[in-house]
């Protein structure tokens, strides 16, 4: 460490974090961090700094930077490192006031941090050894009774606090299956001991609650092997600030980059970026730890990524912070194929490719994008995608209303209905689900619990199910919030409509959902939004829809922006794409925020969002790696290669072979992406992971490879029947008598959106021409040529280049 310091450049800068601190009780402490910055790099120099207090009668500071209150007033705490100094202002209050540890504010955090109430211990559904706490302390009142009263008060001994079973077991004074949790000389032990000695003061409704967390530092750029302490401060509803670092649950989302211990000490283990998630009292934030790769990347390397809009600015900033060079822009051919597949789920035709490749205008890519966004196939593709999301299927809807639901979605895409209106149309409508297809949402999700869990997943990317039974253990959502939300849907009425399948959705003027433990309804309230009074006669769904689509609702726009981004970029900025919880840090927060801001500013316009993404240099980057970005699958330095979905593969095979698939009950020529329903029989689609549209979860569509897929493509009759069809492209080529060279170009253009290379052209032409040499009848000669052509197409349509988007 000393060596490092001596080597530290003279122009390094020192700062103390947090810059100001408050100690509001005699037991309050504040760990300060001395952070040295040299260029882009940070270094935690807390341990080597010389710490001093301007007024030890107000506050003292120890050698490790921990500030302790002495008397009321203000003091300046200074760190001196290598001749440089920096200070923090500390204010001490209530230093002479009597102090008692509080159950909610101290004892529960101690027990939670010690792991007593975790799922594997006393937080288990059945508890452990007759002692059951609520999971991660979601119900302090209940835990209080269990600790102090239950089993004839066996766990607490008011008359002899140290003899309390709670402390005896936790400190391993008597055998404990959970081992040693609290050392006898620790502050945590002292807190519990003194709380018992003070007569176990109970939790009260007046206890201050944590309203926000702050992390210091929030971001640091470090080298592998370096360590950095993170200090976490909680802000309480009474305005107080407390250093709560010792009770925070820390975790790293990328242990290959950074590890974090139980006390917030981060150790960098590799290059890249890691989010250190900080959970305390159902609040979550993260601190970002970056360790740039050791590549040499020049400005010229970065300039290979053209800056077409703000997306490129943010991606470049991220790539620069990590020393990752972007791949060059994709070729026209690769771009066109990619754009068609991503935006409309189809391949460009051979003619479209030829025209595009031949075009000379500078803005030909933008023009191609504009044309693509006006096509019917674009509407089919996105209608299919949102039908996945809305779970459109005849499994639980009769065909008449299944069609109503699908048509409503398709019409919405066609008119580019803003996403807020799309959601509002569902949640504010009443009437017949046959006439207004959107209302079938309430036929699929009938009870308030199902509605709560689906709407949060589909429109907000929040997985709320845990909170049905207890506070979400890793998230900010509490059971109370869950049932307040559920109560918003307590008055959705459904009755039979005018024909089978049709239902009438209407607003009831009574009905409530009880909180399962409190056994009474709570004021209906959308997650962290405003509550309605229980006796309010306002339509609760309207109240919900207003909150849902409010431009200020961060989850709503983040969720949809992330879904659309992932469609094009192969990976959501937040991954998995529908897990937009706070603990799941985005790979580029600034970019996501900018996209969301732009999306909201443009009135939740999906097409605008798509256009912005597709026109960016980032979207048009090549999928080929360079020396620096081989392992990057997260920061968009290259295009992420993705397997085509089953529907797209099937349609592309039909398109190239000129032989449509047939789906029972649907007109000839219907493409897979035009099917409104996933109940339509198709083994090919099932094998390639078509979702069942039963639960709202992006993982319902399986993108995993399987042997069955390979066999289906290679041996199955789906492709082979298309190749050998008498009215297919292969037969047509022969009938028209096209030259082998022209046929070869055509097949390459329609399957790969490019001309064959010389290395491909020569052997393939040789094979085709060899088939002409077959002796015998004209029929036999024709047959030999057809066979050769089919084989050639088979080779191409089963290749990776065909099955993937790159």
């Amino acid at each position, binding site marked *: 460490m000393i060596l490092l310091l001596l080597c530290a450049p003279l122009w390094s800068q020192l700062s103390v974090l947090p810059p100001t601190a408050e100690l509001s009780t005699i037991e309050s402490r504040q760990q300060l961090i001395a952070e040295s910055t040299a260029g882009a790099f940070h270094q935690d120099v807390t341990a080597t700094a010389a710490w001093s207090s301007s007024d030890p009668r107000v506050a003292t500071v120890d050698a490790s930077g921990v500030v302790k209150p002495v008397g009321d007033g203000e003091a300046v705490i200074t760190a001196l490192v290598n001749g440089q100094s920096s200070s923090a202002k500390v204010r001490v209050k209530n230093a002479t006031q009597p102090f008692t540890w509080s159950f909610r504010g101290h004892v529960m955090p101690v027990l939670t941090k010690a792991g007593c109430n975790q799922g594997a211990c006393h937080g288990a559904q059945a508890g452990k050894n007759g002692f059951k706490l609520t999971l991660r302390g979601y119900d302090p009142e209940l835990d209080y009774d269990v600790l102090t009263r239950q089993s004839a008060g*066996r766990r607490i001994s008011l008359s*002899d606090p140290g003899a309390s079973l709670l402390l005896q077991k936790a400190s391993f004074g008597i055998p404990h299956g959970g081992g040693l949790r609290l050392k006898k000389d620790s502050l945590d032990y002292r807190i519990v001991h003194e709380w018992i000695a003070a007569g176990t003061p109970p939790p009260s409704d007046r206890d201050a609650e944590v309203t926000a967390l702050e992390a210091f530092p929030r971001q640091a750029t470090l080298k592998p092997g370096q360590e950095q302490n993170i200090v976490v401060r909680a802000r309480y509803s009474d305005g107080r600030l407390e250093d709560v670092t010792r009770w925070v649950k820390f975790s790293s989302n990328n242990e290959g980059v950074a590890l974090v211990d139980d006390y917030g000490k981060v150790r960098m283990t590799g290059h890249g970026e890691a989010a250190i998630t900080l959970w305390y009292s159902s609040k979550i934030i993260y601190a970002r730890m970056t360790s740039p790769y050791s590549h040499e990347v020049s400005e010229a390397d970065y300039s290979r990524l053209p800056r077409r809009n703000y997306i490129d600015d943010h991606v470049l900033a991220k790539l620069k912070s990590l020393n990752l060079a972007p791949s060059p822009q994709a070729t026209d051919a690769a771009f066109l194929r990619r754009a068609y597949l991503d935006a409309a789920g189809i391949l460009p035709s051979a003619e479209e490719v030829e025209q595009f490749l031949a075009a000379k205008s500078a803005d030909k890519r933008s023009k191609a994008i504009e044309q693509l966004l006006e096509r019917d196939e674009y509407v089919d593709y996105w209608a299919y995608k949102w039908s996945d999301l809305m779970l459109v299927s005849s499994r639980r809807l009769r065909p008449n209303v299944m069609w109503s639901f699908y048509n409503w979605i398709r019409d919405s895409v066609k008119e580019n209905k803003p996403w807020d209106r799309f959601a509002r149309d569902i949640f504010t409508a009443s009437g017949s689900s046959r006439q207004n297809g959107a209302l079938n949402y309430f036929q699929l999700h009938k009870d308030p619990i199902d509605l709560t869990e689906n709407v949060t997943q589909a429109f907000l990317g929040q997985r709320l199910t845990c909170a049905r039974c207890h506070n979400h253990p890793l998230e900010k959502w509490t059971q109370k919030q869950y049932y307040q939300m559920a109560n918003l849907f307590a008055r959705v009425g459904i009755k039979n409509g005018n024909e089978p399948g049709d239902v009438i959705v209407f607003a009831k003027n009574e009905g409530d959902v009880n909180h399962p433990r409190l056994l009474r309804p709570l004021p209906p309230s959308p997650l962290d939004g405003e509550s309605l009074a229980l006796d309010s006669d306002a339509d609760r769904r309207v109240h919900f829809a207003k909150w849902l689509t409010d431009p200020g609702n961060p989850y709503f726009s983040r969720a949809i922006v992330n879904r659309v981004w992932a469609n094009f970029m192969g990976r959501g900025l937040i991954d998995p794409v529908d897990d937009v919880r706070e603990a799941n840090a985005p790979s580029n927060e600034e970019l996501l925020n900018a996209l969301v801001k732009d999306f909201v500013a443009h009135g939740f316009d999906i097409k605008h969002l798509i256009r912005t993404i597709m026109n960016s240099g980032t979207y048009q980057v090549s999928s080929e790696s360079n020396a620096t970005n081989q392992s990057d699958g997260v920061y968009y330095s290259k295009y992420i290669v993705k397997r085509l979905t089953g529907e797209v593969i099937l349609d592309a095979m039909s398109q190239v072979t000129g032989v449509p698939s047939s789906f029972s009950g649907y007109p000839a020529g219907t493409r897979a992406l035009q099917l409104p329903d996933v109940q339509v029989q198709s083994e090919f689609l099932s094998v390639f992971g078509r979702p069942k549209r039963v639960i709202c979860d992006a993982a319902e569509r399986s993108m995993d490879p399987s042997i069955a897929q390979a066999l289906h493509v290679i041996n199955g009759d789906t492709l082979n029947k298309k190749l050998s069809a008498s009215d297919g492209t292969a037969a047509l080529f022969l009938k028209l008598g096209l030259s082998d060279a022209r046929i070869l170009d055509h097949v390459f253009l329609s399957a790969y959106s490019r001309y064959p290379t010389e290395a491909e052209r020569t052997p393939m032409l040789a094979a085709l021409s060899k088939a002409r040499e077959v002796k015998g009848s004209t029929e036999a000669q024709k047959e030999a040529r057809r066979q050769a052509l089919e084989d050639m197409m088979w080779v191409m349509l089963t290749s990776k280049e065909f099955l993937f988007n790159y």
Partner: protein
Amino acid sequence: MTRRGFISLLPAAAAPLQPQIFSLAWQKLLALGGFGDVRLLDPQTKAVIATLGPHAEAVRAVAFSSAGNRLAAAGGRPGLKGELRIWDVEARQPVATAQGHSDCIYGVAVSPDGALVATGSYDKLVKLWDAASGREVRTLKDHIDAVYAVAFTPDGKHLLSGAADRTVKVWNVATGERLFTLSEPADGVNAIALHPSGKMVAAGGLDKTIRLWALGERAGELRNTLIAHEDAILQLAWSPDGKTLISASADKLIKVFEASTLAEQKSIRQPDWVTGLKFSPDGGRFAAGRYDGSLTVYDMGAL
């Protein structure tokens, strides 16, 4: 509440203002199990007549013999050992001290003839002891979770035990054989109360429900069920005339029921969890001792 509020202002390590009550029995005298001792009170004046001790930790169960001359007081160290002391009430002297459970004792009962003492413990065992010598007579082993309550039938032939394993078990005292199990409770049983005739038993616990069974020779028959409280039932007591059943719960209510129908007659708010609930021998009053050390004697006629 005010008491705790007051304590919280005291410097750390302040002792409780009044001794806590962990258990209660009523014969001629009132016995209150406390921390490290048992206090004997005059039921009229509530004056402390004598203090019996020492006991290890809290005395979580007390029971008089039917003649009132012996007191069985049990407790022990949670997680470590059980302790049973049998006291000569007149002489205020211990007759016997027994140690045998591996965790503390929650239920104690003296057989009608005064010869045996039964204990139920967190260690899942029920034990029978010789009341004169403190010698262990036998161990009754069948519960799979903590035993919170034990009671002898008036003929002394049977012993009943209620446990956290959601059962009440009926035992043959002479042989130690388990005769049958009442397994209707949906969660742990905290308390049992026998009808004075010995023909009925009531049990209550974490499922907030009072259940009444008629006891036969080889089986019990569930006669009545009532979700009686909003939180766990802690204590049950049957009046000597068999007409009234009272319950105390973690919802901080004592409820008075007409025993045959379980019709609720009265509900009385409590300042803290009730840890001891017993009728006076004449049935005219009942006493409630609480975790916070407070004690109230209720007059049945004035409810």
